[in-house]
């Protein structure tokens, strides 16, 4: 494999930005955001440069590595701080730095009134650096550093306005649930080291063939746990909705386009493990299928525009995970959907941010309406993203999502039929809730608060939205024309030959579009033809109520983990005080007590002392009496 010494700049540039901005304090308030944006952009250009170099090389020579220094070396546990840039990671590098830079630009204006804007940019840079480390690390442990680094950045950014207790709680929740996932990653690394003696990607890949299926299944399941944490998949999905507490650019970058897709990256990167562990792979598919329905159902009931989009993100990542779980045929499509989703979902989030910007930070869609006329650019960019997510040809989602649906149907047997049906249903529901968002926000009559004066956002904000919209329109075609992405990535994945086709692409597309049309029709009937209440109606079906509460996920977590955990904690605290420390203090008290009671003998009266002597003498004589026979 070729080595390079310029990979480190990808990470070092944004990391330097974070460090400079955090250490310089208020001195850099004036220019900090510009520096951060410039560094993020330069990292993007380094990525483009690397891509151009990579395109010049043959398939086999494309991956390049860089060893920075020896990080940990104990016995056989040798981890270098090493970077690996291959066909897979370059996709992510460009997505992260590209979308990241756009969001930096957007934030300059979006955050211009916030006194802590410098800190915000520092965190954004920290996030970019961590995310790049995540995708560039050449071993699972290096990935782990980035993995937790993005968790930290996400925590800091969700809690950016942590003076509000609810936001602070949301950030804590995100971090803790992520940590549960991280624990899975730790387990995976431990099992890998114990069974294969290495944790580098190349090493594990080489050893995977000789490793027992049981161990690989263990690693696979643990990697899946890690992925569910970071990517907000079932059953660790509950944090994503609350994560919307962060500023909207954060939701766009971290909780839509990049960080939450890290799970997909992890599974795709570990393809050699999942390919050899069918059970783990099946679990991946199941998790993806459950989550895509889960997210979609939540999305139908949310009135908060950001939470609706968050539910949609969860659902779309479910698609990706499902795709990645389908094996070699699915990896490329999962990545493709990841990239197109990066564009359209980021664009839509930025649009949502733009709407909020114009509506005094109102997030309730029931208080929107008829914004089309006041925010034409936002409407158009958001609309393009909408068409993309629905999968309307020729927009981006059409290429990526339909491929996943098709692959799902072709997975074979009853599994294929179930998965295909689920993905199709998901597409229909997606169409329903996204149309609902569109109608409630941009059409119909205005239901604004009195103070609201909707207006279009400044160019610094709409420019990134426009660029992303272009991406939403074209990326699908570009990536799939001539199977560009599939071929690009194919050296990384083992090809197991073509599956038999259950349904032809045409039929799948037709079915999908039909479902989408039905979804749109439902939404149109319900929200466009009928009046929309300004306050969410309470006389709704039990299903709507459950969906509004995120399908009871928080209630479940509280009832099953949090409350018993709190009770356990309190019981243990009491136990420690009463039983363990009680025993310690009991020893002390026993000593004191026996002293106090024996002190009674020391009455101070000479005669009682004499009495004791007499008793002693009696005892002595008695002893003689017994002993001397």
């Amino acid at each position, binding site marked *: 494999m070729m080595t390079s010494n310029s990979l480190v700049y990808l990470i070092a540039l944004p990391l330097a930005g974070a460090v400079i901005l955090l250490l310089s304090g208020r001195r850099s308030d004036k220019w900090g955001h510009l520096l951060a944006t410039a560094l993020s952009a330069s990292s993007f250009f380094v990525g483009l440069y690397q891509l151009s170099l990579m395109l010049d090389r043959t398939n086999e020579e494309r991956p390049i590595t860089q060893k920075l220094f020896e990080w940990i070396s104990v016995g056989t546990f040798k981890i270098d701080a090493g970077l690996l840039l291959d066909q897979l990671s370059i996709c992510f590098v460009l997505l992260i730095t590209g979308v990241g830079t756009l969001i930096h630009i957007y934030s300059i204006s979006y955050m211009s009134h916030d006194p802590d804007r410098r800190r915000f940019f520092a965190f954004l840079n920290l996030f970019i650096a961590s995310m790049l480390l995540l995708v560039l690390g050449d071993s699972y442990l290096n990935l782990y550093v980035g993995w937790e680094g993005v968790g930290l950045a996400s925590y800091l950014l969700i809690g950016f306005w942590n003076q509000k207790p609810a936001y602070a709680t949301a950030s804590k929740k995100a971090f803790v649930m992520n940590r549960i996932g991280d624990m899975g990653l730790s387990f995976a690394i431990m099992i890998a080291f114990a069974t294969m003696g290495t944790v580098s990607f190349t090493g594990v890949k080489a050893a995977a063939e000789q490793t027992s299926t049981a161990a690989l299944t263990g690693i696979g399941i643990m990697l899946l746990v890690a992925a569910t944490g970071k990517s907000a998949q079932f059953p660790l999905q509950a944090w994503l909705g609350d994560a919307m507490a962060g500023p909207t650019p954060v939701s766009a970058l971290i909780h839509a386009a990049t960080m939450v897709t890290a799970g997909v990256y992890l599974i795709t990167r570990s393809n050699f493990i999942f390919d050899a562990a069918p059970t783990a792979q099946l679990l991946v598919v199941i998790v993806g299928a459950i989550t895509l329905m889960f997210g979609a159902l939540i999305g139908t009931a949310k009135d908060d525009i950001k939470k609706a989009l968050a539910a949609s993100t969860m659902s779309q990542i479910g698609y990706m995970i499902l795709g990645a779980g389908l094996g070699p045929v699915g990896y490329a499509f999962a990545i493709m959907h990841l990239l197109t989703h990066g564009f359209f979902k980021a664009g839509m989030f930025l649009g949502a941010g733009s709407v909020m910007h114009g509506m005094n930070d109102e997030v309730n869609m029931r208080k929107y309406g008829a914004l089309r006329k006041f925010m034409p650019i936002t409407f158009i960019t958001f609309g393009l993203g909408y068409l993309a997510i629905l999968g309307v040809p020729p927009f981006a989602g059409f290429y990526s999502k339909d491929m996943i649906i098709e692959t799902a149907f072709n997975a074979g047997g009853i599994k294929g039929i179930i998965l295909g049906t689920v993905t199709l249903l998901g597409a229909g529901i997606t169409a329903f809730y996204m149309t609902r968002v569109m109608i409630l926000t941009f059409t119909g009559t205005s239901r604004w608060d009195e103070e609201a004066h909707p207006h279009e956002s400044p160019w610094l904000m709409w420019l990134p939205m426009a660029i992303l919209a272009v991406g939403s329109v074209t990326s699908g075609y570009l990536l799939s024309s001539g199977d560009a992405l599939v071929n690009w990535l194919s050296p990384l994945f083992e090809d197991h030959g073509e599956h038999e086709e259950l349904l032809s692409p045409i039929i799948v597309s037709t079915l999908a579009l039909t479902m989408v049309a039905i979804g749109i029709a439902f939404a149109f009937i319900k929200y466009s033809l009928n009046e929309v209440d300004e306050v969410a109606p309470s006389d709704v079906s039990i299903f709507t109520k459950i969906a509004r509460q995120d399908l009871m996920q928080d209630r479940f977590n509280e009832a099953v983990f949090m409350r018993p955990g709190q009770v356990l904690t309190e019981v243990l605290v009491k136990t420690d005080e009463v039983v363990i420390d009680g025993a310690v203090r009991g020893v002390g008290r026993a000593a004191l007590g026996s002293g106090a009671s024996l002190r009674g003998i*020391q009455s*101070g*009266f*000479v*005669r009682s002392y004499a009495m004791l002597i*007499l008793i002693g003498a009696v005892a002595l004589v008695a002893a003689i009496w017994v002993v001397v026979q």
Partner: protein
Amino acid sequence: MNAANYLYLSALLFTIGAVGVVVRRNAIVVFMCVELMLNAANLSFVTFSRINGDLNGQVIAFFTMVVAACEVVVGLAIIVTIYRSRRSASVDDASLLKR
């Protein structure tokens, strides 16, 4: 005449002396009881001297008497001193060891 009879008497006198030390409160009486115990011991020594047929026991008894005399002298001096400061010859009143 069985010499052991003296030993029985000695044991009884000693016991009475011991009880006296414990139950009487007047320091002088307590002292007399101590003397009684010493004398009881002396009686035993003398008896053993007779039983064993040598004079060692008598010599020991003689020493005991000397020591007892010393003890009485010092003890009574102490009683006088205590009496002078506390106006009481009751051993119960000298209970400062308690605190």
